[in-house]
């Protein structure tokens, strides 16, 4: 039994991964899955509605699950359908996360009013909206870095409310009675109105109310055009270009002159009528017909949307992070009992988690048509990926579970960081002009990120050395030597990549701004990593440090890298302001404090280290 443990564990893990990857299925009568895969354009990218639903929910409440007031679980697609077509119901879902006590007080709410003591419905917020608007306008005048936590919370809530209201005005014009019925009758009322208008111009008798209706519609559509958030109407000729997409107001306004609706608009109106009328069969037929139409017009876009929606629902990075934790615990345990079998088990699970993360990153690259690192979120994914890859190499050479422990820890930590970074919205963003260069993103950004990975890995290996040596008896001479060699090798690797990445960055800067080096905070951060790594190497070569000193220096490498990765970004907002003290900053401080503590522990006299005492 024990002999087959690695195989059994791997089999279970693979089965779990396969279950997580299986295609989502509809649980009710409505084809939510098909609806979630409809392509729309928002923020410059064509994406499935599923992504819109999930990222909006993450922004509003920090999670993708929604509970209806009656306790029923609501899928992101169903929530989005209600937001789009049944605002009166969507307003009762508790999807606004508010934790700041002063903001709650301002809205006359108490934690007890909210789901989970922190989530509130739009309905609950409504009476306080005027005050929220007033407070956020006051906060707008303060530079974002200098805002107090209350002002930040106010602005964040206001932005959430604006996003929610703009989503609600994507297909229905707010404040217009029976809007959906009126646009459903578009193809009768508008031709009538046009005919009446033509008659009026020729001075013939005409139907004045038809002309009036036409003018009213025109005004409504113009208003809608200026506020609608989503651009759901694809270009008529089926081109893949993103420039031809329209929002519903624009599409309807253009149809006014002909009296003919665009097929996509017709489909969205019919879907709304069916959804509001609780007609699942009609809903599904309309949806299927529209999807068939898109299949003919823009098959590539539809495939991309299908893949993205599938990617969203299978959450590969979540599964991967669970596997990393499991592997970490197993590998840790292997130092106490059954070293060979458990080390092998941990290694296989880490490999599986890494493959899953690789697939995830690959799908993101394909969706975005970009190299792996394009923003802070993807850098977190990639730092973890690179470090775990190095761990796998180490583990396959040394086979002492150290690589797996480090892999589990770094893999999980980076995915956790990525999860928190994803709360800002869609992580597949468009690149600003100067960054819009796949060549430099692929070379400079990737190498510099691999440099981060390697520096972190060296630091974590050193942590293992110190903690194992000081607190357990398990660090024998052989393991200690192996760790020293690993750390030294990884520091060499880190020096190579961080240096290469930094100079590639310099060359990019020379190409785009005319200076190789500008002492910009981010450049300096990268430079400090290079300098620190080369300091470690020179101190080692000069005999200034031995194994233990090497570990202390490598642990401080964690501090240096964390500062370059996140610290300088916080600096960019302004060091002198209170706004600097936001949550991420405290996490960074806490991380630095733990690293300094580990360095102090490493400084204990060797006879106090449990491994070396006897």
């Amino acid at each position, binding site marked *: 039994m024990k002999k087959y443990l690695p195989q059994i564990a791997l089999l279970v893990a693979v089965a779990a991964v396969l279950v997580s990857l299986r295609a989502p299925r509809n649980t009710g009568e409505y084809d939510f899955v098909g609806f979630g895969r409809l392509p729309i354009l928002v923020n410059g990218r064509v994406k499935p509605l599923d992504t819109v639903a999930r990222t909006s929910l993450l922004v509003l409440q920090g999670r993708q699950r929604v509970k209806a007031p009656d306790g029923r679980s609501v899928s992101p697609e169903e929530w989005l359908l209600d937001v789009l077509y049944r605002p009166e119901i969507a307003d009762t879902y508790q999807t606004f996360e508010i934790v700041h006590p002063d903001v709650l007080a301002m809205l006359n709410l108490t934690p007890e009013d909210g789901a989970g003591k922190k989530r509130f419905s739009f309905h609950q917020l409504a009476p306080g909206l005027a005050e929220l608007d007033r407070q956020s306008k006051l906060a707008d005048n303060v530079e974002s870095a200098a805002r107090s936590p209350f002002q930040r919370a106010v602005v964040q809530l206001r932005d959430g409310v604006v996003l929610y209201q703009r989503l609600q005005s994507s297909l229905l014009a707010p404040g217009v009675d029976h809007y959906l019925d009126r646009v459903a009758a578009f193809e009768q009322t508008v031709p009538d109105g046009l005919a009446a208008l033509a008659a009026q111009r020729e001075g013939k008798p005409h139907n004045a109310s038809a002309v009036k209706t036409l003018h009213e519609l025109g005004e409504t559509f113009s208003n809608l055009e200026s506020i609608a958030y989503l651009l759901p109407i694809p270009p008529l000729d089926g081109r893949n270009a993103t420039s031809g997409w329209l929002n519903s107001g624009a599409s309807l306004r253009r149809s006014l002159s002909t009296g003919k609706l665009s097929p996509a608009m017709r489909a969205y109106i019919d879907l709304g009528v069916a959804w509001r009328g609780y007609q699942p069969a009609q809903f599904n037929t309309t949806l299927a017909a529209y999807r068939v139409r898109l299949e003919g017009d823009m098959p590539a876009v539809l495939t991309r949307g299908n893949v993205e929606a599938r990617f969203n629902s299978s959450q590969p990075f979540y599964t991967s992070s669970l596997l990393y934790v499991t592997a970490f615990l197993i590998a840790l345990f292997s130092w106490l009992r059954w070293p060979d079998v458990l080390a092998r088990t941990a290694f296989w699970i880490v490999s599986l988690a890494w493959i899953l993360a690789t697939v995830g990153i690959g799908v993101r690259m394909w969706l975005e048509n970009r190299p792996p690192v394009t923003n802070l979120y993807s850098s977190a994914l990639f730092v973890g990926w690179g470090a775990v890859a190095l761990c796998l190499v180490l583990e396959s050479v040394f086979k002492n579970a150290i690589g797996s422990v480090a892999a589990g820890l770094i893999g999980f930590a980076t995915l956790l960081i990525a999860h928190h970074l994803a709360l800002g919205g869609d992580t597949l963003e468009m690149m600003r002009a100067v960054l819009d260069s796949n060549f430099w993103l692929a070379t400079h950004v990737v190498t510099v990120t691999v440099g981060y990975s390697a520096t972190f890995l060296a630091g974590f290996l050193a942590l293992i050395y110190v903690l194992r040596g000081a607190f357990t008896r398990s660090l024998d001479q052989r393991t200690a030597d192996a760790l020293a060699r690993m750390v030294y090798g990884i520091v060499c690797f880190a020096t190579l990549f961080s240096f290469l990445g930094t100079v590639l960055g310099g060359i990019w800067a020379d190409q785009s701004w005319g200076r190789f080096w500008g002492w910009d905070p981010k450049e300096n*951060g990268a430079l400090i990593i290079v300098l620190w790594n080369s300091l470690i190497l020179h101190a080692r070569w000069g005999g200034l440090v031995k194994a233990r000193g090497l570990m202390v220096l490598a642990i401080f490498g964690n501090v240096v890298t964390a500062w370059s990765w996140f610290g300088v970004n916080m600096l960019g907002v302004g060091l002198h302001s209170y706004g600097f003290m936001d949550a991420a900053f405290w996490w960074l401080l806490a991380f630095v404090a733990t690293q300094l503590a580990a360095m102090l522990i490493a400084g204990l006299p060797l006879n106090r280290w449990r491994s070396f005492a006897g």
Partner: protein
Amino acid sequence: MNLSTLWRDLRAFLISLKLTVAMIAFSIVLVLAATLDQVNLGVWAVQQKYFHCFVVYWNFGDFSLAVFPGGYTIGGLLLLNLIAAHIYRFKLSWRKSGIYLAHSGLILLLAGELFTGLWQDEYQMRLDEGETKNFSESFRAIELAITDTTDAKFDEVVAIPESVLADKKSVQHPKLPFRVEVKSYLPNSALQARSGAGDATASIATTGAGTQLIATPQAVTYKQNERNLPSAYVELHGPSGSIGTWLVSTQLIDAQRFEFADHSYKIALRFARHYNPYSLTLLKFSHDRYAGTEIPKNFSSRIRLTTPDGRDNREVLIYMNNPLRYAGLTFYQAGFENNDRTSILQVVRNPSWLLPYIACAVMTLGLGIQFAIHLVAFVARRRNVVAAVA
């Protein structure tokens, strides 16, 4: 202690790895301090205070205390250390070849940064659509330009640089029939209307725009996205006494004209100009955004490049990450203004721009070789260990 032991001690100090480690540690502290101080000083002033100097001073009040070695000291010692160590320890061997390459690349890189600091000039060129210019302007340096426009065919320009103005010197130039006396110079200023009699006494201008406007001093800014806007009061003295006192400012768009001794002149304080033997015309500036957003996708300027001799007359497209390199200058797309109708190009002259590229190639090659040597040795050793265990 005799001279030879002193020499030996100095040599031992210069080639020691301890010095290397100490200098790297110093440079880390220096870079970190310079990064944090950018919040207060901005990136330009920080470079002067920390890197382009031998000693970093800490100013409090009127006192300034030397607290840390500056960029030149640390970089210089590192360079000496590197060169000395290689001269004394150099042994031709494959095992060290990567290290040698990497370090000679580093020497080249440090030298390149030094040359860049010494020789690089930066200007900018603002072009409205349809406008043609044969000069670029400095970011910071200004000049007082007095132009003789009597002859319709050509202008004769006398430019007095900022350093002279700031010293409030009096200038007599062979091409000018009058002496220029700087009465007051404001490194950063704001112009206001000279409203009512109350302010009139504060201004010393007797003619030109200064009769309507008054310049008030402003705090000098070091911020990256702000520019100092200097003004000056300048009095011209002819053979028979004062001609008048003018208010000149970079904020006045048009030069002020006057007549003297049957010649017509223009006087203006402007950002120092760098003339090129060719001209650029902005045909079209484009600012593309991603559909349905305000996120910029690309900025580009379509430019016509013409030389007076007619050798070059062609269209070029300058866009992000694609500058125009021409006759020793490089033109980058830097910004835009005026509802996307004005393009701002950054113009850089850096004769040593290729050095960092060469240095990086050499260093990367060196580090790569060294890493590969270590890796091969490591794998071979592992294989032996595994074989021995088996």
